[in-house]
């Protein structure tokens, strides 16, 4: 279960980022077919980030403690702590932005395009923050790796 949650949550996050890219591209020039695809994909993005929140949160709650102890043995412990604290709190913004995306896409139509600029902005923010989360996750894994190397020098 530990490894499953460890790998599932960044995978779902990456899929959510790709979905947000999809919504962004569809919103660049709206027609009937693009609108239909954008609406479906905005729902998919929201569901993916809800699942990312739950799976990442469960891993954080139940399994991160052991990794934190490992990271504490190495010289990257402060870097790991920055990454983890940042991830725990930044994710709230991504979750809310992803839930806002379907609100926007279902109120956009071919006659009323007031939601188009917010859709582009929200999708771009999800991609930007999502990539920051993936980078922070990789940094966190690096801090654990440095801790392990300190305990078991090659």
């Amino acid at each position, binding site marked *: 279960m530990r490894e499953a949650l460890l790998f599932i949550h960044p995978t779902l996050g990456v899929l959510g980022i790709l979905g947000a890219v999809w919504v962004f591209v569809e919103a660049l020039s709206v027609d009937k077919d693009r609108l239909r695809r954008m609406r479906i994909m905005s729902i998919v993005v929201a569901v993916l980030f809800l699942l990312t929140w739950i799976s990442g949160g469960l891993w954080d709650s139940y399994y991160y403690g052991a990794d934190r102890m490992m990271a504490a043995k190495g010289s990257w412990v402060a870097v790991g702590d920055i990454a983890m604290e940042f991830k725990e709190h930044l994710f709230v913004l991504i979750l809310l932005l992803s839930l806002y995306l379907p*609100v926007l896409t279902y109120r956009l139509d071919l006659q009323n395009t007031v939601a188009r600029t917010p859709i582009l902005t929200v999708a771009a923010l999800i991609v930007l923050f999502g990539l920051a989360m993936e980078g922070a996750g990789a940094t966190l894994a690096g801090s654990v790796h440095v801790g392990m190397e300190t305990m078991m020098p090659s």
Partner: protein
Amino acid sequence: MDRQIYSFGASIVVASLLTAVIYAIKAVIPGLDEAIEDSIGHAWSYMGVIGLVVFFGLGLAPVRFAKDGRSLAVQIAGAALVSAGVLFLLSAWLAVRGN
């Protein structure tokens, strides 16, 4: 029909800034984060729940901060980027301080 575009947009602005403010309060009061975690649960859950309550609470209310779609986008981007910057700086400060 546009009402929810603006009300949920306003709720995103408020929830983003509130997340940064709550984190700042936890950062400047030593032991508060641990006390909250001991009483109501881990940060990933209670911060998310607070965000969701604000998002749906304000989103369903007749709230509007922006005059058009462009200014709404600027408000959302500004609040989200400022909040993300504050979160990063506070995380770095806490790690350097040794919390």
